[in-house]
């Protein structure tokens, strides 16, 4: 009975214009209150083995991650495979339970006695995955796929359908042409547009894009990125943009968070991070970017080896085994990130950024990045 009542109120809200005005009625704490506050989130995946199938270890996928997401921003999360960025996304959406830590959505703790339920969170927070094909039900016309979420949350069938068609138009797919089609009848880029439309169907406030453009062809990737920019302003969205591609992140993100082996190693405004990274790992990632100018080839690899095994990460700083500046202190003590609640701060979990750490380079900045060649545009013109 209660579910039915909620459905009614939800339906009523749905008739309002879809473009959310600057003063978002869903906003609760005002602009100063972070939309998402994640504190000490942890997820270990147990590894079992032996005859008794006992726990013999754990993959430390997400290990004490804390950060805030400001309303209306795009926070880019970068890192190599195995750094925990996708696990983090799944934890935030509640697809897997966390071991410990807390998530607060616009002032409301998620899952607690006084906060909001997971169901309510999911209406506000949606996710788009990398594999555009696997995320769509092959037996449903795309219009049904998009309308599915609102219907589960209680919207009437006809209304859900018209919402779906409206959204198809918004993501650049003509509804009369695409609504009745099945996923196998459309291209990869179009499927990803459908996935984005579906994610928007519940009018979420936060959209998590987990490598959402990585599988697309380059020319299509650019189209979808432009679309994301358009949707963000028109639906008053906040993005959590997860990607391994630094060029894409530098284009779309206002702030960047860099992860390594389940932990945050650096976070800060995009410009600060891309111009003057503070963590040696971030610096190496930036140096590994390939330019389209054959005159500026990378002659020596910025990093050697692969990321270590997340089952048994190195002691102290987890990056020290690949770090050119590693010293004794790095093996002994885990470097802290500091005041992560301050969204404007540029922080790095590195002993070199802490004057009192005892590292011989403590307090010194990293050597500047080799000058990046200008974008191709300027060169041709």
């Amino acid at each position, binding site marked *: 009975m209660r579910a039915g009542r909620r459905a009614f109120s939800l339906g009523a809200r749905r008739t309002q214009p879809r473009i959310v005005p600057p003063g978002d009625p869903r906003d609760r704490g005002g602009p100063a209150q972070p939309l998402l506050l994640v504190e000490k989130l942890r997820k270990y995946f147990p590894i079992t083995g032996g005859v008794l199938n006992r726990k013999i270890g754990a993959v430390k996928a997400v290990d004490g991650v804390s950060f805030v997401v400001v309303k209306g921003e795009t926070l880019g999360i970068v890192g*190599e*495979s195995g750094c925990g960025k996708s696990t983090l996304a799944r934890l935030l959406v509640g697809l897997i339970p966390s071991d410990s830590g807390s998530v607060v959505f616009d002032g409301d703790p998620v899952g607690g006695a006084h906060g909001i339920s997971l169901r309510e969170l999911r209406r506000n927070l949606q996710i788009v995955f990398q594999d555009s094909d696997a995320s769509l039900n092959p037996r449903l016309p795309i219009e049904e796929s998009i309308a599915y979420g609102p219907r589960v949350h209680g919207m009437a069938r006809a209304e859900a359908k018209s919402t779906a068609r409206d959204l198809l138009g918004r993501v650049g797919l003509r509804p009369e042409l695409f609504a009745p089609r099945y996923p196998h009848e459309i*291209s*990869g*880029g*179009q499927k990803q547009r459908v996935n984005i439309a579906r994610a928007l169907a519940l009018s979420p406030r936060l959209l998590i894009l987990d490598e959402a453009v990585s599988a697309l*062809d*380059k*020319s*299509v*990737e*650019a*189209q979808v*990125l*432009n679309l994301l*920019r358009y949707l963000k302003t028109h639906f008053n969205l906040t993005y959590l943009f997860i990607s*391994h*591609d*630094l*060029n*894409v992140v*530098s*284009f*779309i*993100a*206002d702030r960047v968070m860099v992860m390594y082996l389940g932990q945050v190693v650096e976070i800060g405004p*995009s410009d600060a991070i891309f111009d003057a990274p503070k963590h040696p790992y971030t610096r*190496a*990632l930036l140096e*590994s*970017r*390939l*330019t*389209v*100018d*054959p*005159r500026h*080839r*990378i*002659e*020596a*690899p*910025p*990093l*050697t*080896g*692969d*990321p270590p095994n997340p089952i048994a990460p190195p002691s102290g700083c987890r990056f020290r085994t690949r770090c050119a500046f590693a010293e004794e202190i790095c093996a002994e003590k885990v470097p802290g990130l500091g005041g992560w609640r301050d969204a404007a701060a540029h922080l790095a979990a590195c002993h070199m950024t802490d004057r009192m750490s005892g590292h011989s380079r403590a307090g010194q900045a990293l050597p500047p990045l080799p000058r*990046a060649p*200008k*974008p*191709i*545009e300027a*060169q*041709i*013109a």
Partner: protein
Amino acid sequence: MNAALVPSLVEVRDLSVKFAGRDGAVSAVNGVSFHLKPAEVLCLIGESGSGKSVTMRALMGLLPKRRAQVEGYIRIAEHEILALDERRLATLRGAAMAMIFQEPMTALDPVYTIGKQIAEAVQRHAHATRQAAMARALELLQLVKVPSPERRLKAYPHELSGGMRQRAMIAIALACQPALLLADEPTTALDATVQVQVLILLRKLQQEFGMALMFVTHDLGVAAQIGDRVAVMYAGRIVEEGSAQEVLLNPRHPYTIGMLASTMQGRVRGRDIETIPGSPPDMRFLPPGCSFAPRCRFATASCRETMPSAVTVAPGHTAACSRVAEVSPSAKLAVS
């Protein structure tokens, strides 16, 4: 020395590949011609479905005989690939030419150790004893810079990281010092920091062995990092070809120009990126004229009717566009 006098190692003329499918034939490659000199690196750039991987597989003689209809002429060293039977091809694969793939986990056999898989190639083609082959395998693992190679010899593929597996794949490919190495997006599945390592390693080995390398990628940055020459493919055709510097810094085909304009590198935040409208064509129903015409802002009626032929725009730089005189890079850049 006149570079033109060096005989080419690979010659491909008018290669076309059609796959018979349930809903009509897919024209994957439509008249591709190119050549490759010894010790040269040629990058085939293209999006998915552009025919770059199929071209590579045709060179390797790997296309399924019954389903793929291959026409044209392929010569690698003195061998005419399309005229050879399967037995003869098998003796060439690994010895004269070798190939590495995007996903080392599926290309390696999960039930044999890395050492065994490298040694197999050595035993097969160099007719070495098992012990000699294992010793060679160890050498090869050292060559591709796998840390603690003695231990890795006895490791199974699942025990290695992605970068290490790709290095093992390269070791297998190099086992018999082939004159030609074909690489099909070998670094696409790797992390950025590992990708650079593998690219630099490949380039170094290629130079050390004087080996020709054909490298397929969709990433312009990768092509710029490794290619001497690049060939841009679209809808099964080479639309632009030339030295890496010429093509990437002075592109003349509207498709190449569009691809370069839509790279994210160095773009200003908060402004739209220029994009190529539409999506790649359906390879079952290719338009009669230039395949890129439906997405091209320079296209005229004649572009949609007649197939453009390659025009030389600079020495060694060709573009298959009938409006190449009107297409200037600065014209398109006025928009952004």
